[in-house]
């Protein structure tokens, strides 16, 4: 049995304090959970059992040892928790507020060990029904982020920015050959029959060398944002300015017209707030009164790169390190009125902004917003200000994690959307699919 080399904190852990705490009601947490963006989007199961199983697995791993290295960013997270007494208070309360039966990590040190385990591992396939194992950090933090103290502490800038650094470090690991061990043909590997089918691997994608170990991929992320086969995402309407293509694979989720510069995006109405979404860009004004169209990228077979939806010139691009583990306070309110947190994600989450000037009126400028929602939440861009793009040109990719996508149009830019998100009561309706490079809207062009 091996113990971790250095303790993350200098605390003695034999507290005098009683176990006094009030846990969150399990039924309330289940209702809220069923309504979350990550669940609606299929990045986490609605059922707690597999999530709980994953947590038990992590608990067993950290209890049995086997890991001797501390990731420096996890150690640094321990220091951030330790430095401010009220942050430690919130963090420990968060752990204690998790309901009985779901509370596997009782102390800051155990939580840090669990983080350390996750950032030293790559996601496994397990099987197609066990999504929880494909999204380890979301599964680990599932109950934490739904507790009152967890909500407060995970949106503290000190904690959020250190968790972002930890995720960056995990991303480095997933970019390295160390993460290749999960690309195997065993029952939990990403190259077994079931996983190949789940990811549509043989139909849609290019493997560097299927006869080489790990089929020639250099890392887990290399596999995650793999190349598409030529011809699998044909470009619609080349040269036709009225044709707007989808920049990504996904499902239509929300459409809102007449968007305001500032809106209460955290309320259950989930109005988009352009100033927040566009990070005070100098181009924000153009979009006031305009339209936001949001989609989700599914796990599994969806392609994890995005392309130019129109021809034009990139007039601004930026990536924004946002909040990865927060959700709108409105989430538990009303399970029937629709999915929550999409406006929140667009205004708060880690994301990139690519402003493309079409050069034609009234289409004008289109802002493409890839949003990293969970896990490493990393968005990488291939384009920069000044670049000319044509429909179908690759503009960037997502590293491992759940993702969403928004597009912002100027007022009067769009004549018609060809793929519409479901309206009210959309929780129970099927979602319409979008394909990268396929037309989804008609532009107004004079």
């Amino acid at each position, binding site marked *: 049995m091996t113990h971790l080399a250095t303790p993350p904190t200098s*605390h*003695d852990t034999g*507290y*005098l*304090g*009683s176990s*006094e705490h*009030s846990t969150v009601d399990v039924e309330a947490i289940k209702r809220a959970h069923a309504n979350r963006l990550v669940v609606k989007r299929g990045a986490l199961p609605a059922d707690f059992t597999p999530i709980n199983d994953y947590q038990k697995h992590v608990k067993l791993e950290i209890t049995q040892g086997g890991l001797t290295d501390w990731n420096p960013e996890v150690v640094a997270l321990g220091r951030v928790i330790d430095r*401010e*007494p*009220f942050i*430690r*208070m*919130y963090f*420990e*309360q968060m752990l204690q507020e998790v309901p009985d039966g779901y509370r596997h990590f009782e102390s800051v040190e155990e939580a840090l060990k669990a983080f350390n385990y996750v950032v030293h591992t790559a996601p496994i396939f397990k099987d197609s029904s066990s999504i929880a194992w494909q999204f380890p950090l979301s599964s680990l933090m599932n109950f934490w982020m739904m507790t*009152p103290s967890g909500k*407060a502490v995970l*949106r*503290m*800038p*000190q904690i959020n920015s250190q968790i972002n650094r930890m995720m960056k470090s995990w991303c480095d690991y997933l970019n390295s050959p160390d993460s290749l061990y999960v690309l195997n043909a065993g029952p939990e590997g990403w190259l077994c029959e079931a996983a190949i089918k789940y990811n549509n691997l043989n139909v849609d994608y290019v493997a560097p060398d299927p006869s080489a170990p790990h089929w020639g991929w250099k890392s887990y992320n290399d596999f995650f944002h793999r190349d598409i086969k030529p011809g699998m995402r044909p470009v619609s309407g080349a040269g036709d300015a009225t044709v707007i293509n989808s920049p990504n694979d996904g499902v239509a989720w929300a459409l809102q017209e007449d968007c305001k510069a500032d809106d*209460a*995006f*955290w309320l259950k109405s989930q109005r988009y*707030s352009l*100033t*927040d979404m566009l990070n*005070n860009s100098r181009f924000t004004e153009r979009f006031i009164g305009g339209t936001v169209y949001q989609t989700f990228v599914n796990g599994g077979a969806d392609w994890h790169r995005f392309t130019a939806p129109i021809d034009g010139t990139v007039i601004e691009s930026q990536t924004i390190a946002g*909040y990865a583990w*927060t959700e*709108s*306070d409105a989430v538990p309110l009303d399970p029937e009125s629709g999915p929550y947190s999409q406006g929140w994600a667009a*205004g*708060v989450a880690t994301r990139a902004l690519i402003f493309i000037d079409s050069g034609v009126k009234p289409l004008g400028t289109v802002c493409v917003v890839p949003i990293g929602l969970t896990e490493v939440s990393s968005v990488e861009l291939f384009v920069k200000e000044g670049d000319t793009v044509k429909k179908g040109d690759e503009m960037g990719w997502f590293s491992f994690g759940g993702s969403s996508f928004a597009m912002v149009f100027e007022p009067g830019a769009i004549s018609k959307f060809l793929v519409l998100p479901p309206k009210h009561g959309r929780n129970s309706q099927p979602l319409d699919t979008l394909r990268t490079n396929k037309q989804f809207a008609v532009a107004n062009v004079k």
Partner: protein
Amino acid sequence: MSTRSDVDRDARYQQLYGTVGGYLPADRNALHQWNLGLKAAVARSKQGPVRRPRDPAVVALEHAIADSAVLRMLVAEMLDGVPPDKRVIDDVSELLDHLDHITRLAPHWEANSAKRNFFPMSALFAEMMMDRAGEEIFRHAPFNDAIRAILRSWCRYLSSADSRHVLNQEEHGWLSPAAYAYNELQDFVIPDVNAPHWGWQSYNAFFHREIKSSARPIAGPGDSKVIVAPNDGTLYRIAQNVRATDRFWLKGEPYSLRDMLGETEYLNRFVGGYVYQSYLSGADYHRWHSPVDGVVRDAVVVEGLMFSNLVNDITGVASQAYYTAVNTRGLTFIEADDPAIGVVCVMPIGITEVSSITLTARPGDHVKKGDQLGYFGFGGSTIAAVFEKSAIDRFLVQPPPDYPAAGRQPAAAPGATPVQVLVNSAIARAR
């Protein structure tokens, strides 16, 4: 929308430090009336011929709110948490106007304790702090840091001659007969009773005025075994066998030395030792003194929270020990001349309003028992003194027996008789 009942909100209000300490009106409706009065004053000031631009620290808060979606949500939720019959602030702009107005406001004397309000900013925040967003936001660094900068600005005003107009002998002046009696000014040094404002140069100069040495005689002069109180105050608690790290937020509020003292070479000396804590009320003397003869080894001010309370569903607002772990505080480590006492740490802690702490004794200074160590700027305060385990033979004062078991501030605990201790009086015998 408020998530707490009006009865619950009343109970919380009565347990607030500002209410217990006599700085806020005893009647919560009077607080509301006061806030409405301030709102009218803010409106009037906006109609004047010359408008002062907003204080730069208030503008900085405005930017902090605009720049952070999370903070905007918390502010909106905090404002929305105030029930309609107590709502005074409708939006962020109005909140900023009130804060700006307060940075140029000196408190007025009020004889009627039901209506008395000496804490304008606590009054503004009192109803907003009672819900979850209001609890969180005062621990949310971008907000807390911006509020601290506003308090600095306010402190500059209160330390300037512009603030001394409230030092007058009229009905609401601090030199009126009723205020004189309330503050026991006969015990204090009045710079020049014939000069305007009796010679005080600012409101803060009056607030931390000096006391006559005859009014606070030093117990056991020359006897190193007699340890004296570092401050005037209501005794909150004497804790023994305190731990290096503890869950200070739990019922019973255990002291957590490492949170109180931060990283210091002296930490281990205090493990297993004692914490003596008392809090100041409106009329108390706002300077503190050395409890022992010794050499100052370290003297620092640690910036922390100011308007945060520990609210526990079981015990209500129970914050005195919580403040020692999280609030802005001074730490003065004194190595006693008597080796049996070892090192003593005197910890003045700011609560609400300007939370300003000035340490006058510097490292290397030799202080005698009763020598001044520092003073508070305008605001609430509590003081802890930390002793080594081997230092104390016995304490000579005791808090009310039903406290701290009740988990509350003494005056809020039913049936408790507050124990008042004066600075320089004997509190303990050293071994």
